[in-house]
């Protein structure tokens, strides 16, 4: 296809050929390979070279290209040999590996489109060149000059990536067909080696990327662990705080007890008259109602010293609610002579309340007339500390409730987690069976059936828990709701006093009795009163007023209403009020109303809430009246606390 020795004038001018350079054909002598006498194959050498290459590939893939150059140099008896690879942008070749005389030129570069390597790739055939510097003068830097250069392309995955070449620097060495065969064989090997080296390089990159990702994940996990540690620390701290509060409360209680004991001791001292200045004393001649007070007693009652003391004068200071108590005391004193002891309250002109403790010793004078001599102690301070003590106690009880709730929650979680575990495992199995090819429909059906059964089981656990809470059977007895309510009002007196709440009650006279559990109903009433108190604790701009009302309701029901003037509630939240653990209070557990509603419902009644037109809210319940029962007039009152009148308590 080409002929050497053509006159340069016969060659048309080619734009890519530098001016003054010879055409490609004039430097090619590939055809000569056929005509030259071929040397005999040296199979042993060839095999040794291939084995050396294979072990280089196995042992140190990165140096395999240089080994290739060395072996080409050796097997072809060349003066120089090497491997040129295309750069990434495919615009240049670089001498990736060189052996022999040109070894110092390793790493040299040449343009892709203008040089023997480019010619070989363009024509996609092996080529034998003779003094290529005639066409590519710039190659003259590679000294000594190449007399002959034999090049073959090599490919990776069908893509040409470079050439392998052998060079003879003088005319003594002429390449022949055997050399071409060897070089092509080496080229095939180079393909494989190149691929392997490439894969190893990719693998290395992949490993690096994976290691980087793993480091990132580890760092993320470390971050999470730190977060968990921090959160756990916080929880531990708050638990410690709770215990500290608990301990503080216990210490406080112990201190209160000590204070009480000390108070009692000083009472004894006072009784002996050792500290009369702190105790008021009196004498009372019953027949004439002649009463003598010590100065201290005037101070306690805040009357001018020397004013004539009468029972009527005393009555003006006694708390209106305690008047019946006073009358009772006077009546008893007028009867049999005995010692007596009372506690009652004074309501002072400035509306403050004093608690008095009265001890009297009865005797008869020489003429047989009754006379009492007694001491009156202002025990307001003691009462206040008792109240503080009871507050501390109830706070302690709250802590205990919270603690036991934690235990309860854990056991509920345990009970529910068991069937949940079955549900999740069955559902996972079901999905896997459906995703199989072919899907295992029968198996999936069975696991789905078990999922449902375990779901029911979880629901039964909840039902069982519910039954546990309502374990106590309500006892059915005739309950006078008026009387039951009065008891609750009396019992919660100190709480209202502390919270400065005024309670008014309006009880219907002709209220039928209801059938039910008295204690449970009283729990509900107490809860409603407490809620009312709590709702008003922040009220300062108007009186804290509670109205408790009983009345007949339609359908033979009896209704009790507790109306407060507190913060009220959002009408949209009316239903949520009765959910367990729903609370608007800072310290509430949110179970009171929920339990109350379940009690009233177990009495076949209903409990509901409504916002007032003005401030506050009204909670009511209605339960059926017992068949044929009416409240007995003048039913007994079995409590001895200060009686609560139906009039306003002014505290």
């Amino acid at each position, binding site marked *: 296809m080409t002929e050497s020795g053509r006159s340069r004038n016969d060659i048309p001018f080619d734009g890519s050929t530098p001016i003054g350079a010879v055409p490609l054909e004039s430097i090619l002598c590939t055809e000569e390979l056929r005509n030259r006498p071929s040397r005999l194959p040296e199979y042993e050498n060839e095999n040794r070279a291939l084995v050396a290459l294979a072990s280089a590939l196995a042992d140190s893939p990165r140096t395999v290209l240089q080994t290739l150059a060395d072996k080409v140099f050796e097997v072809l008896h060349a003066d120089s040999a090497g491997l040129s690879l295309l750069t990434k942008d495919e615009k240049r070749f670089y001498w990736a590996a060189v052996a022999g005389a040109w070894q110092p030129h390793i790493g040299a570069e040449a343009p892709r489109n203008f040089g023997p390597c480019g010619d070989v790739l363009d024509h996609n055939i092996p080529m034998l060149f003779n003094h290529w510097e005639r066409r590519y003068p710039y190659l003259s830097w590679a000294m000594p000059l190449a007399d002959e250069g034999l090049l073959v392309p090599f490919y990776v995955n069908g893509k040409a990536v470079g050439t392998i070449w052998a060079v003879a620097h003088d005319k003594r060495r002429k390449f022949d067909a055997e050399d071409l065969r060897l070089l092509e064989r080496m080229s095939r090997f180079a393909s494989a080696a190149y691929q392997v080296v490439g894969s190893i390089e990719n693998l290395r990159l992949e490993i690096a990327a994976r290691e980087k990702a793993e480091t990132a994940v580890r760092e993320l996990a470390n971050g999470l662990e730190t977060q968990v540690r921090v959160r756990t620390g916080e929880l531990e701290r708050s638990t410690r705080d709770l215990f500290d509060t608990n301990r503080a409360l216990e210490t406080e209680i112990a201190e209160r007890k000590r204070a009480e004991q000390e108070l009692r001791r000083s009472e004894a001292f006072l009784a002996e008259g050792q500290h009369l200045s702190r105790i008021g004393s009196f004498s009372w001649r019953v027949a004439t109602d002649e009463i003598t007070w010590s100065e201290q007693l005037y101070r306690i009652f805040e009357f001018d010293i020397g004013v004539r003391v009468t029972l009527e004068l005393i009555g003006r200071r006694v708390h209106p609610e305690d008047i019946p108590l006073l009358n009772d005391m006077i009546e008893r004193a007028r009867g049999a002579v005995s010692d007596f002891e009372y506690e009652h309250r004074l309501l002072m002109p400035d509306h403050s309340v004093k608690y008095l403790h009265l001890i009297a010793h009865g005797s008869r004078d020489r003429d047989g007339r009754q006379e009492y001599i007694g001491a009156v102690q202002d025990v307001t301070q003691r009462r206040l500390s008792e109240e503080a003590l009871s507050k501390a106690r109830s706070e302690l009880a709250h802590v205990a409730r919270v603690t036991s709730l934690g235990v309860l929650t854990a056991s509920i979680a345990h009970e529910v*987690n068991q069937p949940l*575990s079955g549900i999740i495992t069955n559902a*996972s199995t079901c999905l896997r069976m459906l995703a199989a090819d072919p899907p295992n429909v029968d198996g999936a059906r069975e696991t789905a059936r078990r999922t449902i*059964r375990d779901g029911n089981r979880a629901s039964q656990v909840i039902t069982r828990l519910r039954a546990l809470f309502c374990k106590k059977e309500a006892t059915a007895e005739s309950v006078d709701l008026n009387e039951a309510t009065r008891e609750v009002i009396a019992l919660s007196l100190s709480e209202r006093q502390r919270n400065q709440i005024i309670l008014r009650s309006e009880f219907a006279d002709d209220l039928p009795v209801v059938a039910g559990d008295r204690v449970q109903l009283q729990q509900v009433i107490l809860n409603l009163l407490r809620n009312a108190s709590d709702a008003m604790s922040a009220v300062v701009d108007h009186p804290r007023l509670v109205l408790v009302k009983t009345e007949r309701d339609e359908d033979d029901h009896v209704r009790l209403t507790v109306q407060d003037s507190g913060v009220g509630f959002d009408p949209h939240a009316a239903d949520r009020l009765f959910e367990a653990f729903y609370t608007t209070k800072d310290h509430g557990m949110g179970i009171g109303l929920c339990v109350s509603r379940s009690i009233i419902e177990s009495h076949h009644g209903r409990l509901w809430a409504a916002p007032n037109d003005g401030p506050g809210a009204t909670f009511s319940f209605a339960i059926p009246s017992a068949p044929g029962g009416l409240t007995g007039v003048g039913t007994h009152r079995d409590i001895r606390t200060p009686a609560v009148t139906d009039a306003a308590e002014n505290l």
Partner: protein
Amino acid sequence: MIDTYALVSVVDDDESVRESLPDLLMEFGFAARAFSSAEEFLASDCVGQTRCLILDIAMPGMTGPDLQRELKLRRQDIPIVFITAHRDETVRPRMLEQGAVECLFKPFSDTALLKALNAALPAS
């Protein structure tokens, strides 16, 4: 990765676990057996063949950790994955410290279980 014919034994007093877990294990490609107590497992002929034990911690009679100790005494070195419905975060580190492969809180996901099993039965 997984030895597809390895026997995984489940010991749990909870019936729904005994019913559901073996099916899932078989979906994973294991052979599976379930026992309602540690005693039942010890009395069976599966002890020597079991390649991994999924063991409930709290059981009436012999507990999970009891069985673990018993197996150690018998020199039966079976990898153990503990499971428990009582979510107590302090339990897991304790179990791992005492040689468990993993400790899963019920309910656990199939992927969490598979991960534990892969850790218990590394490719040989």
